[in-house]
C-alpha cells in the first residue's frame, strides 16, 4: 500500500504533542503494513521539526510563513496526488477539521473523525474507534485503505526519542489563495495562567448563574487554587477566555482538577485528562467526565461549594 501521510501541526515553534503522537502510531502502522511514513508540514518554522520527525520522508510547504487553511489544503492534496497515500492522519484539531473532511471529500476518500485508536488489520486496511455523541458512545469503524483519519490529541503516547534525520523536500504550491491571513492573535493570558496552577477549581454549565461564580472563587481561595472553566462558561461571557480548559482553550495538568458541573464533552476532556487527580461533581451520573475522573459524586455543586469552603476554613 501507499505511504501513510501524517500532517504535522506546529505549536509555538515546536511540533505539537498531537502530531508527535500521530507520527509514533504511523511508524507502527507502517511497519505492520510494510509501507513508509511521509510527513507534511507548513511554514519554514516546521523544517527542523520535520527533519527530526522520524518519518521516512517529509514535505514542507514553506510558501506561507503561517498556517492558511486553503494553502495547507492545496499542499496536502498535491502530496496525496504525488504519493498515492494509503492512509492520511491528522490531529483532530482546528487544522484537522479544516483539512481532513475537505481533502477526503475532494479526493473521494473515506473519512473517519474523532478517532481514539487505530490499528492495522490484514489486507491493507485499518480499524479505528471513535468517540461520537459527545463521548456517550464509541464507534468501531472499518477504515479502508486510502482513508483520511483525524485523531483526538492524547489518544496514545508519543515515542520518547526519535533517531535519524528525515529528508525534507520543498513543495511548491501553485495558484492564488482566496484566503489571506490578516493577523495572528496571541492568547490573552489574562490575570492568571491556569496551566501553572497545582489545583484547579473548574466550573461548567452546572454553575447555572454568573453569581454562583463567587462560590467557586471562595472555594478556590480556601484551596489555594485557581478557577478555570469549560467552554460554555466562556461563551456566556462569565469568565475570560484565558480561563478555558479544552480543545480551544488551555491544556492543563494540575495535581488536582476539581470539575464542578462539567459534563465532560470530548473537547473538554482533551484539555484536562492528564491531570494527576481528577475529582468530578456532576448531577448526571452518566456524564462522560466520570470516565476520566478518579473520584466522583452527583451532589449539588451549589450546595457543596460553600460547605467545602467552610471545611477548608475559608470565607463563610
Amino acid at each position, binding site marked *: 500500500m501507499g505511504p501513510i501521510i501524517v500532517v504535522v501541526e506546529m505549536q509555538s515553534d515546536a511540533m505539537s504533542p498531537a502530531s508527535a503522537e500521530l507520527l509514533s502510531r504511523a511508524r507502527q502502522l507502517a511497519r505492520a503494513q510494510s509501507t513508509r511514513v511521509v510527513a507534511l508540514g507548513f511554514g519554514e518554522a516546521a523544517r527542523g521539526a520535520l527533519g527530526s520527525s522520524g518519518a521516512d520522508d517529509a514535505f514542507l510547504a514553506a510558501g506561507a510563513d503561517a498556517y492558511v487553511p486553503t494553502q495547507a489544503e492545496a499542499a496536502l492534496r498535491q502530496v496525496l496526488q504525488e504519493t498515492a497515500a494509503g492512509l492520511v492522519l491528522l490531529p483532530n484539531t*482546528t487544522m484537522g477539521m479544516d483539512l481532513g473532511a475537505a481533502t477526503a471529500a475532494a479526493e473521494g476518500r*473515506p473519512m473517519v473523525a474523532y478517532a481514539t485508536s487505530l490499528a492495522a488489520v490484514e489486507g491493507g486496511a485499518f480499524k479505528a474507534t471513535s468517540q461520537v455523541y459527545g463521548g456517550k458512545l464509541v464507534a468501531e469503524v472499518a477504515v479502508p485503505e486510502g482513508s483520511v483519519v483525524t485523531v483526538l490529541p492524547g489518544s496514545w503516547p508519543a515515542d520518547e526519542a526519535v533517531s535519524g534525520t528525515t529528508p525534507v523536500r520543498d513543495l511548491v504550491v501553485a495558484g492564488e489563495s482566496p484566503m489571506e491571513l490578516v493577523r495572528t492573535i496571541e492568547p490573552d493570558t489574562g490575570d492568571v495562567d491556569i496551566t501553572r496552577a497545582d489545583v484547579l477549581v473548574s466550573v461548567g454549565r452546572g454553575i447555572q448563574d454568573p453569581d454562583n461564580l463567587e462560590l467557586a472563587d471562595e472555594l478556590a481561595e480556601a*484551596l489555594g487554587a485557581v478557577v478555570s472553566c469549560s467552554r460554555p462558561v466562556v461563551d456566556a461571557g462569565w469568565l475570560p477566555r484565558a480561563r478555558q480548559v479544552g480543545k480551544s482553550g488551555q491544556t492543563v495538568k494540575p495535581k488536582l482538577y476539581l470539575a464542578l458541573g462539567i459534563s465532560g464533552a470530548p473537547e473538554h476532556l482533551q484539555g484536562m485528562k492528564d491531570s494527576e487527580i481528577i475529582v468530578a461533581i456532576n448531577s448526571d451520573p452518566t456524564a462522560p467526565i466520570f470516565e476520566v475522573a478518579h473520584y*466522583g*459524586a452527583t451532589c449539588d455543586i451549589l450546595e457543596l461549594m460553600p460547605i467545602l469552603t467552610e*471545611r477548608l476554613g475559608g470565607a463563610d
Partner: protein
Amino acid sequence: MRIAVLVKDVPDLVEELELDESGRGLAVDDLSYVPSEWDDQALEEALLLKEASGAHVSAVALDTGDVDNMLYTALAKGADRAVKLVGDYDRTLPGRQRARILADYLAGAGYDLVMTGVQAVDDLDGQIAGLLGGMLGWPHASVVRDVAVDSGAVRFVQEYAGGRMAEFRSSTPLVLGVQAAKKPPRYVPIARIRQVSRSAALEEVEAGGSPSESLAAIERLYRPEAQGHATMWDGDAEQVAAALVALLDEQHLRS
C-alpha cells in the same frame, strides 16, 4: 451578501441513546431530536451579520425527518427564507451523503457564504463544513468565530488550541464551520414560531435520491466501558465535602 445557514437536528444527548438491533446504529425512531447546538451558533452569527450589514439569510435543512419546526424557528428568529431539501432519505442518512446533497444544491443556488456548525455530535464521517468545501472546491475554514462582512469579502477569526487565534479575509463563495456566535443564540417564543408557521411557507427543493459516496463502515456502536470510571462518593453535599477534604489531606494538597 447572501448567506445560507445549514441546520440539522441531532439526538438529544440528555436522553438515553438507544441502539438498534444491529448494534451498528441508533434506534433513530425512539430518540428525541434537538437542533445541533453548533448550528444554532452558526444561525445566530448569521442573524447578527444580517443585523450588522443587511445580509440575506436562508436557513437550509435536509428533510431527514421532522425539520419543519427547526426551519420555522429560524424564520421566527429572523431568517429571510427557509429551504427544505426534500427527497427519499431518513435520519440514517450518513453525513457524507448529506454533504453531497447539500453541495449539489448549494453549487447552483447563488450563495456567497455558507455557514454551519463546526461539528455535530454525529459527524463521525467528517464535519459538514469541510466536506462541502472539498466537494464544492470553495475555500472553507473550521472553528470560526467573529464573522464580518468586509466590502464583498468575509473576515473571520479561527481558533486554535491554547487560546491562539488568527484572523483571515477570504473572497466568496466561502464555507465556514462556526464554533460560537458573538452572542448566545436568541430565544424565540413558541407562539411566534406557530405564528410564522401559519403565515410563512417553507421553500421545498427536490433534491433527488441518496448519492453514493465512499464511506467507512461502522462495525459496532457501544457505550464506553466503565473501566476507567471514577470511584463514586455517595451521600449528600456534607458527606462528599468530607470525602474531598480527606482526599486533599491524603494528597497533601491543602494550602
